[in-house]
């Protein structure tokens, strides 16, 4: 079988399973940010790691087919604008920047902390996409004497 880029066959088989597990774990951390430890930041970094895991195992071309670079920076800006609008939403609703204007819900259920949940999701979008963009930009800057497969610089 032609040895395309990325690591050996065993690694690829295992990554197919672990990537989805890591992704699921990251989503769990983000959504339960206000109940259990972790939150937008930790979840975002975990999601970025699951993508990086994919890229390391399968090489650049396979992974980037699924997520093209344009969507990464688009995701990141969307996260930024979303978070910025939540902050501004507080301003519009009641004239106070950053007010927690959504109903609080009852204590320990999932939708219980008003804007905190949406802030978490906004940060998750921003952190995840941003860090993966850093990795793609750094990893595929070709060093002249690098033996690895080509690929243009980001």
């Amino acid at each position, binding site marked *: 079988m032609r040895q395309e880029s990325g690591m050996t066959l065993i690694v690829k088989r295992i990554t197919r399973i672990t990537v989805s597990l890591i992704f699921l774990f990251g989503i769990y951390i983000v959504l339960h940010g206000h109940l259990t430890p972790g939150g937008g930041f930790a979840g975002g970094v975990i999601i970025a790691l699951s993508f990086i895991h994919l890229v390391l195992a399968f090489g650049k071309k396979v992974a980037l087919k699924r997520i093209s670079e*344009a969507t990464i*920076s*688009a995701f*990141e*800006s*969307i996260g*930024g*604008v979303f978070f*910025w609008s939540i*902050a*501004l939403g*507080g*301003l519009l609703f*009641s004239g*106070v*920047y*950053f*007010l*927690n204007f959504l109903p609080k819900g009852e204590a320990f259920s999932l939708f219980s902390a008003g804007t905190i949940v949406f802030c978490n999701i906004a940060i998750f979008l921003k952190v995840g996409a941003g860090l993966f963009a850093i990795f793609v930009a750094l990893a595929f800057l070709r060093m002249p004497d690098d033996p690895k497969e080509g690929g243009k610089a980001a």
Partner: protein
Amino acid sequence: MIPLFVAIPLGAAFIIPLMSKVREGSARWIATGSALALLCLSVSSLWWVQKGALVYSVGGWKPPFGICMVLDNLTVLVLLVINLIGFLVLLYSLDYIKKYTAPSLYYTLFSLLLAGLNGLAVSGDLFNLFVFLEIASISSYALIAFGTEAEELEASFKYLVLGNVADLLILFAIGVLFGRASTLNMADLARSLQSISLTDPVLYATALFIVGFGLKTALVPFHAWLPDAHPAAPAPMSAMLSGVVIKVVGVYALTRVVFNVIGITPLISSVLMVLGIISMAAGVLLAIGQWDFKRLLAYHSISQIGYVVFGIGLGTPLGVAGGLFHLFNHSLFKSLLFLNSGAVEHATGTRDLRKLGGLCRTMPVTSATSLIASLSIAGVPPLCGFWSKLLIIMAAFQAGHTAGAVVCILTALVTLASFLKVQKFAFLRAAEGLCEGVREVPFFMLCAMVLLALLCIAAGVFFPPFLELVVKPAAQVVLEGRRYAGFVLGG
């Protein structure tokens, strides 16, 4: 209204990457629009603050609980400096950026820098001040390395390492204060520090603050990064760096922390004065031997910052007013000088004074504006530099520090000498081989330089009303020291 100072540039920074994918030219206009809106906001904020401080608690939580934004006379002066110079430099860079690739990244980083500086000036919370200081620093590291040439990368790395060490020292100082008083709001901290006498931890935190902010303002013992960072950065960025970033990040934060939170004591003010005198003298002496236009200006920045710190370190009303007025003037004429050096480099391609010559015939406007700027930095009477230096020297004599006053006068003379050298070599000499076919710089660069020159003259001529309206109340806020807490918590 206060959160708009941060919300507008942040919104512009988030939207520019999205819009530049849709339409290439849109990045320029979003950035200029947000800078113009900020300028109008900061000019109108002159009339908002009468006595005391305008407090805005973010998220509806009362000050000691959440984070509050404070707008008092000192902040108004600093915001005016940031947004005025920021808008003019952005105007200048509309044409200058054509030499670089990826202009939308430049505009994003520039509006992020403006957001960081405005957030820093407005914030009333110690950790929040650190976060916005970090935003301004990271965007200035990236802007310095914008040309990705070897020299710029090396200068940016050195600046990043030293800047980050300064940030860590500042964070340590915040930690020590937090450990002692367990609250982060500046007003609440000032009130609880009043009860605790100036014992070891607070003294230690002040020392860390002075070292950290000294590194940021490039006072002499810590100035290693500045002379490398300036020649490498693109001209509008080095104008912004030495005109605004050094002052706001360093001097404003230092005065806010030392005067309003910890409270000034004779020991601290003498330390500040000594630092000011050393950096005044050393900056000018180092500047004499320079032939690179921007490196010479960088060393002069160090000595002018020495003036400001010396003025504020005096602690007398006249001294602090002189220091703050010099802060405003210096940001005017120093950024104009850097813009001139950028224009010279844009037209002739070199910064070495030995190769330049006879530019006043081929580039009339640039040489006229740089003449005005050189005269005002040297302190020639009608222009603005003279008045602020005069105030500082008079305050030094009144306070009995004749040695400091003598150093001020000598430094002013040496500055005059070195800027006459610049004028002679760059503009008045017979044209050398390189400078024959030189055309004037494009329109936007010209109008930015002309506007700055007019402001220099206006600040010089209309100096009495400006002093009463803006600088005196700002000095009043600084001198009130601990009563700042009364305004914020009481208000």
